[in-house]
Every structure is written in structure tokens, then in C-alpha cells.
């Protein structure tokens, strides 16, 4: 996987910030040749990751830092993609406990991790020594959708 260029967004842990991030992600996905469906999937996964940080990492406090880095990458079979890092300074949790729930249990909540797992090609949670959580995710342009 070779990196080419990256964009970093620094936002406060306020749900009002989410449309700004969605707009940036959507624009970058279009530039990288993502189809409409995959661009929406990427945007949704990042949105869900940020929502989880706001709700669980920071317990809803709206003034805490979240850094999002979007990096264009080239993956398997030369497919272009976008790697995402979501870094926060909130509560640390054991990555092994971060799992999507049983969807047969129809109820509100707990769907964000399932969406990330379903939509992204790669994802990995870790606990950096300096505190907080780091989520790394990658989504590649779907086969046949690469442009240029």
C-alpha cells in the first residue's frame, strides 16, 4: 500500500461538526474515483466512528479534540483507496471489546461498529500509549469503478 497525499481535519467533539467532515470525505472520495455507493459508505463509516467518539469516548462533551486524517493510498491490484485515521483523547477501551452487536436484536444503538465493519475493507482499533483511541480504516475503490 503506497501513500500519496493526505488531508487532516481537526474538529471539536460536537455533532455540529459532522456535516463538515462528511462534505470533505465526499469530495475526496469523488476525486479518487469512488462510485456513489462506495463514497456514501465511506462517509457513513467515518460519521459513525466520530459519533462513537463523541458519545462514548467523550461522554457527549462537545469541546474535546478529534483529529481525522484522510490519506489516498494504492492497495491490492493497484486499486486506489482512502485510508482514514480517527484519533481522540477520550476514554480508552480494550479494542477486543469493540464489536458489532447481533442485528436480530432489533433496537436502537450499537449499530455504528457494525456499519464500519460492513462498509470498510480494513479497520483496526488501538490504544496509543499517549492516551485516547486510534481507529485506522481503509476503503478501496470497488472493482471496475476506478477512474483514470
Amino acid at each position, binding site marked *: 500500500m503506497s501513500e500519496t497525499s493526505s488531508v487532516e481535519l481537526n474538529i471539536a467533539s460536537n455533532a455540529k461538526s*459532522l*456535516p463538515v467532515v462528511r462534505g470533505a470525505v465526499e469530495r475526496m472520495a469523488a476525486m479518487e474515483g469512488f462510485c456513489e455507493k462506495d463514497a456514501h459508505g465511506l462517509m457513513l463509516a467515518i460519521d*459513525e466512528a466520530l459519533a462513537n467518539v463523541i458519545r462514548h469516548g467523550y461522554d457527549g462533551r462537545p469541546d474535546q479534540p478529534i483529529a481525522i486524517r484522510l490519506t489516498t493510498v494504492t492497495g491490492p491490484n493497484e486499486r486506489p483507496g482512502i485510508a482514514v485515521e480517527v484519533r481522540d483523547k477520550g476514554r480508552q477501551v480494550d479494542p477486543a471489546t469493540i464489536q458489532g452487536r447481533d*442485528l436480530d436484536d*432489533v*433496537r*436502537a444503538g450499537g*449499530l455504528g461498529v*457494525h456499519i464500519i465493519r460492513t462498509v470498510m475493507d480494513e479497520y483496526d482499533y488501538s490504544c496509543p500509549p499517549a492516551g485516547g483511541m486510534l481507529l485506522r480504516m481503509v476503503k478501496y475503490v470497488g472493482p471496475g469503478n476506478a477512474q483514470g
Partner: protein
Amino acid sequence: MAEKQNSLIKEIRRSDGATVVVLAGDVDLHHSPELHAELVELAGERPPRLLLDLAEVPYMDSSGVGTLVEVFRRVSSYKGKMVLFGLNDRVRSVFEITKLDRFFTICETEEQAAET
């Protein structure tokens, strides 16, 4: 219901047996709590049928889907029926990813929703 500045509810039409609620805007973490409160208030009127028009909802996240699950449960608790219609591909895909498309009644048009 008092009109609220940031409400996603654009219009409410009440008729015998049905209440149609037209939503407009992104149903995301920022807007879902207020929408939840408003829809719960509407469900409290116990309309036999609650039809939600999502044609002007460009985006919905899991908090929005969760809001609709909770309202659905309230409507079902008094044997009412809740139907969604007018979903664009993006919004529909969120229901599909979360497998909630099998839980809700989803129609293309208001006419179809009214006939379910």
C-alpha cells in the same frame, strides 16, 4: 406541537386514521435527539397510521435509524402502523446495512404507504 428552529419536521398532515410527517434535512447525531422527541410526541397522539415522508432526507446515520426504531416500537405498542416512504438510495442503504429494511415497512410513494 410548537414550531422549533432546528426541527427536521417540515410538515404534518393529519387526516382520519393517518398522520403524514414530512422530514427535510440530514437525520444525524446532531438532529436525531430533537427529532426523537418530536416523533415521540406525535406517537403520543396515537395515530392509527404514522407515515414518514423521507424524500427530502439526503442523509441518515445510525442515530436516525435508531430514532425510527424507538418510534416504531411506541406506535406498535398501541397496535398502530408506521410506514416509511420516499427513501433515496443512500438512506435506504443504511436500513439495508443494518438489516432493518426487514423490520420496517418501506414504500416508494405516499400512495403506496397509505395502502399498506
